[in-house]
Structure formats: C-alpha cells, structure tokens
C-alpha cells in the first residue's frame, strides 16, 4: 500500500535521506525508530507530500506522491490521518470543531458529521470535553483530540510523529493503547518514536534509521540503536 523506492533527500549541505526503500502493507503497525535527526520526520513529511525527495519514488495506494500537483495534495491527505508531538490543533476551535473540521474539508454532509464526531470523541474518552477550547485541555487530552481528528475520516493510514514526546508515562500508554485500538479496527499505523519502552511493549515491525539510512527492518523488532 505504501512504498518508498530509493528515496534520497539532500538539504543544503547534508543528506537527510539516503536510499530509503520499504513497503508497508495494509493493517500493519510499523514503528519508525532512530535518534533525533535520523530522518524519521522527513520520511513522514514525504509521505504526506509536505516535502519532496531529491530523487526516488513514493507511492501511496493509487497516488504517485512525488508527482502530485500542489492542488492534488489535499485529496491525498484526506486518506492519511496525522498526529504530531505538538498536537497541531486549531486554537480558535473547540475539541468538537477540531474533529469536525477534518470532515468538513472532505465535504462530508452535516448529518454524518453530527453522528461521527461524538462517536470518535467517545472512543478517545473526551465526550465531556467536546466544547472545550485547546487552552482548556491538558497535553494528553489535546493528543487525544488529535487522534480523534486523525481517525474520524476513516483514513487508510494514521501517521504519528513522536505523539508521546510531550506526555507523561501514564498519558503515553493511553495514547499508544488508542493507536493499537485504531490498528485493530483495520487502520495502518506508522509511529515515529524514540521511546524505547513503547517499541518494546508493542513488539511489532520496527524500521530503524540512522543518519538518513535504514539500518534495520524487522518483524517483531525491538528498540536497539547499537
């Protein structure tokens, strides 16, 4: 479903990605691990078309991501739910509105929005905070709003870039459990993290990166940078 073929990315002066190739099948749960600057975020940015590779090919389902015109990117992004360390929620909207916004931009009818959003907020345990603004929520709650937003469109893939980087251990496990739940419902998950405990707890496929290269790709992998 997702394929990176010989992807190479050069920023001014240094190589961010070198010969990155991998495939991800539907319903997989893949952890992308590595130190800061290893290239995890660059891989994610390329998948959602936020950055273009210097060379190489990236495909997502029917989309040839590198060849997409800027105006075609919104279509691609509606198939991918994204979760970030800094939440990236709209501060002038409530939790409910942040989630419904993803459906609004996809042109979903109001009726469907009115049923789906409460369901998803319930799933992430935020039914009682639906009308709160972002500055009224804790870090863990914000990340759960972000997860609700990422999955409300029923995307094929959810990519999470260090989603637990700003959270305490308790909230971290909550978020990981939510991601597992979403995966069990049939959604592919790509999780970029440098949290050893999470990776070892998951015991799923692990792609390890170092200096822009993939140095290991194992089913049932463990966190190891040595």
């Amino acid at each position: 479903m997702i394929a990176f073929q010989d992807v190479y990315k050069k920023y001014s002066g240094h190589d961010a990605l070198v010969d990155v190739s991998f495939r991800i099948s539907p319903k997989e749960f893949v952890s992308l691990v590595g130190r800061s600057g290893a290239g995890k975020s660059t891989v994610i940015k390329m998948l959602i078309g936020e950055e273009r590779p210097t060379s190489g090919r990236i495909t997502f389902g029917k989309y040839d991501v590198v060849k997409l015109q800027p105006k075609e990117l919104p279509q691609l992004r509606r198939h991918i739910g994204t979760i970030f360390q800094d939440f990236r929620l709209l501060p002038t909207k409530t939790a409910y509105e942040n989630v419904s916004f993803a459906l609004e931009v996809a042109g979903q009818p109001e009726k469907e929005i009115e049923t789906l959003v409460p369901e998803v907020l319930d799933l992430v345990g935020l039914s009682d905070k639906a009308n709160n603004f972002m500055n009224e929520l804790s870090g863990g709650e914000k990340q759960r709003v972000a997860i609700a937003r990422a999955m409300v469109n029923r995307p094929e893939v959810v990519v999470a870039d260090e989603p637990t980087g700003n959270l305490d251990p308790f909230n971290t496990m909550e978020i990981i459990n939510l991601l597992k739940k979403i995966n069990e419902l049939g959604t592919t998950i790509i999780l970029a993290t440098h949290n050893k405990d999470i990776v070892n707890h998951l015991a799923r496929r692990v792609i390890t990166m170092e200096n822009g290269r993939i140095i290991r790709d194992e089913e049932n992998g463990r966190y190891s940078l040595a």
Partner: protein
Amino acid sequence: MATTIYRIIKNALSHLVRQRLLFGATLVVMVMTLFAFGSLIVGNHVLTSALDSIQNKIDISVYFKTTTPEDQILAMQQTLEQMSEVKNVQYISKDQALQNFEQQHANDPTISQALTELGSNPLSASLNIKANNPNNYQDIANYLNSTSVNSMIENVSYNQNQLVIQRLAAILNISREAGIILTIVLALAATLIAFNTLLIGIYSNREEVEIMRLVGASNAFIRGPYVIEGVIYGIIAALISLAILAPVIYFTSPYMQVFIPGFDLWGYFTADLFLLFIYEAAFGSVIGIISSMIALRRYLKK
C-alpha cells in the same frame, strides 16, 4: 458547493468572534483608513467646488464703441460662442447696462441726477466672456485685439487684468494638481497601513493555515474565510467611518457655505451617501481580499 460556502462563511464568522482582540485592532485601522478615504473623496469635492467657484468669477468683458451697431455685436457673440475655448458669452445691451448701473447706484442721488442731466445713455454695450479654462483667456484676448474686430471695440477688460487672471489661472492649476497628488499620496499611505495590518493578522494565523493544509483542506477552503473576513472588515469599517464622518460634515457644512457661496456639503454628502458607502466598502473589501491572497500565497504553495 452550497455546503462548502456555508462552511466557509461559518468559519469566517466564528474565527472573527473568537479572535476578538485581533478583529478589534484590525477594525480600528480599517475604520481609520476608510475615514481617511471618505474624507479624501469629500475633501476633493470641496476643493473642486471652491476652485470652480473662483474660476467662475473670472471673465473678460468687451466694451463696444457706442457707434457699433447691435447686429455686429450679436454676430461677434456668435463667432465667439463657436470658439472651442469659450464656455459662454453673455450680451449686455446699452439699455441693460444702464439699468444695471442705475440699480447699483439707486441710493446715490448725485449719480442719478447726473444721468438725467446727460439726457442720453453714455454706457457701451458689452459681451461677458467666460472661458472653459482660465488659460484660454489669452487666446480669446488675442482674437479680440486682432485688427479685424478691433475697430468696433472700445476696451477689453483683459488688457487691464491680464496679470491677475494669469496668476489666478496658475494658482488654480497648481491647486488642482496638488489636490490630486495629495489625494493619491494619502490614499496610498492609508491603503498600505490597512494592508499591512491585515497581512500581520493573517501572518499570526500561519500555523492555523499549516494545520488546515495537513488535514487536507483545499486552498479555496483555507482562503475562503479570510476573503470573507476581508469583505466583513470592509463593510463594517465603511459603516463606522461614515457614521464618524457624518457629524463632522454636518457641523462644517454651514462654514463651507460662507467660503463657497451656494455650496451645500451636507446636501452632497447625504445625496451621495449610498455611493460613498459602496466606494468605501468596495475599497475595504478589495484591500482585504488582496492582502489575504498575498499572505496565503506563501503558505499555500506547498
């Protein structure tokens, strides 16, 4: 499509309400800009009216020899009226001149007595000529001083007033040009200030724009609310600025009438109020729309 437009408008309105501080600050700048813009339109009208009124006072009078027959004078009036430089020509017959003279000196018994004693009408018939442009008086005077018609003419007032008319014409020209330049410069300054304020407002929302892109919002969906906000700023600021301008004009209107007789500023303002509103709202909206286009172009390129 209708749903998308509804959502864009809904997003614009809730965005404005929830960013009250930014909305208020931007609105104040827009009101000041449109107030300046409205004042410039009205001020320009005042200046033009004042200059027109001064220009209207300039004319040349041609006094004919008492021996010149009336039909020759009327023929000359026709010739003058056909000249492109001439706006209008008024014929004042000998009798009319006497009547005017008597009216002007009705309270002066010595003059009326002198006239009675004289027995005949000593005044000349004359033509009052107004030019389209004060600069044209020289050409008209040249024609009147030419030998073909000169024999009928006793006196051309331009010959005495030449210097004053020329200076006045120069002052009028400079005033009009200065008025236009000042209007352009002030309008430009006001526009740039409003423009910058809106740009900064959108710039402060750049993260929001990024987030909208990430969840797959199309460019139109992101830009839409900002365009609507621009139009809302334009309309509200136009209403407020006119509400401020109205009392200013109402109270200054009587004073204007002293300077420019017959000039009714309040009448002009009320008659053209709707048009003024349309101008201001359109001006404000266009600034809003263009600034949102420019500001978002950077963020929507990717």
